[in-house]
């Protein structure tokens, strides 16, 4: 069982709580220390299995064999091999979300990036009338004439429309 799980990180049982806990424990757990063997191995496996279909199939067909050369904890090995979120949950002792955390547990950056997906994007902007449209058009023409990076002027224009 990874130390990070023993430490109760996933006991928060939510993505939000676990993410905060991961941030906190990143500096405490040997498992999450930059350059740690396990973290390096998990990073490599996650990346390689995303991009390399043969490697992914090898893990699915024979996890022990495919992962034999990697320095993983038993829990990480089991989570990767089983693909079973519930099993990973049992390992973590808490929520289904823990399955994601278990797989990404040694890769904080990966996990945080995954959070993007967890926050589906939706918003609505008020309708703009004709006078607004004329103002926007004029400002866009002005921005187009600017030299250099135009990101900030465009952001300022958008901010006036909320």
């Amino acid at each position: 069982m990874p130390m990070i799980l023993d430490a109760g990180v996933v006991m928060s049982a939510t993505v939000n709580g676990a993410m905060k806990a991961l941030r906190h424990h990143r500096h405490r757990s040997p498992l999450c220390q930059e350059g740690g063997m396990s973290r390096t191995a998990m990073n490599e496996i996650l990346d390689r299995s995303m991009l390399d279909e043969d490697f992914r199939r090898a893990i699915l067909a024979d996890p022990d064999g495919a992962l034999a050369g990697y320095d993983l904890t038993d829990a990480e090995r089991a989570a990767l091999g089983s693909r079973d979120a519930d099993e990973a949950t049992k390992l973590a002792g808490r929520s289904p979300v823990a399955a994601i955390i278990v797989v990404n547990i040694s890769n904080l950056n990966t996990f945080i990036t995954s959070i993007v997906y967890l926050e589906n994007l939706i918003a609505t902007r008020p309708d703009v009338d004709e006078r607004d449209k004329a103002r926007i058009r004029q400002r866009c023409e002005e921005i187009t004439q600017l030299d250099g990076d135009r990101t900030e002027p465009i952001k300022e224009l958008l901010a006036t429309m909320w």
Partner: protein
Amino acid sequence: MSQKNGGYRDADIYIVGLGITGIEHMTRETEAVCRRSNEVLAVATHPSILRYLNTLCPKVTDLYAPSYREDEHRGKAYDTMTANVIAAALAHPPVTFATYGHPMMYVFPSRQLRWLAPYFGLKVRTLPGISSLDTMLCDLGVDPGAEGLQMYEATDLLIRQRPLQPDVPCLIWQVGTVESVLFSTAASRPERFWRIKEYLLRYYPADHELTAVHSSMHPLLEPTTTTFRLGEMEEHHLTLHQGLTVYIPPVGMRPTADKELAERISSVAHLESVTQPHTAVRR
């Protein structure tokens, strides 16, 4: 900046979806426009996706890091994404805005780009991707062709008091962020789900079973599902995280209302009465 494809381009901004589980969800069409672009600005679910995009386009920009701030209105994050893409398109077109899933499925920056780009004289082309709706239909085994499908964003459902049809399968999106448009990584209290539970109880019985589903984001992981009774919804406040969508199966089947039409739909004579003769089609 050099022009790719011999100077031809059909858009200044391509808006594409990267799918849910990884690069295998990317379409060939999406890969082609990434190759054609001078910059890909992406919101991806995994660093390796960004690296894969880098094999298609030499300049890849991660839009996540500069966009989100804790407790800030999500609209500001979307404005940052939009502004970066427009600025890049003005500087060195064509560029691609790539987001996970489908670019027109709960992705406000895509809608904002389509709206704002013409003011700058920029042409936009939007391409489809595999959405979380697509993956959820597979995870749940639901085919909308059977009984239809209704779906709403959770907060919008409550604010507008949208009526539900209990006999139609229902997806409620973003239940985990209900009642707020502010970006937050804080865990939800049970109270967050009181109002939506009460609203759903107007249409469904308390013992009706709901399933919270979260599609796999990595090809090595299976999707996760959690089933609970509507009346116990708030007890799952720690499980109902931001990425989950709640599926509400139908309560019974709506009876046939137009029996005469129901009898005619298998009739050749009726078909001939609503179609042209084959000879007319050939002309």
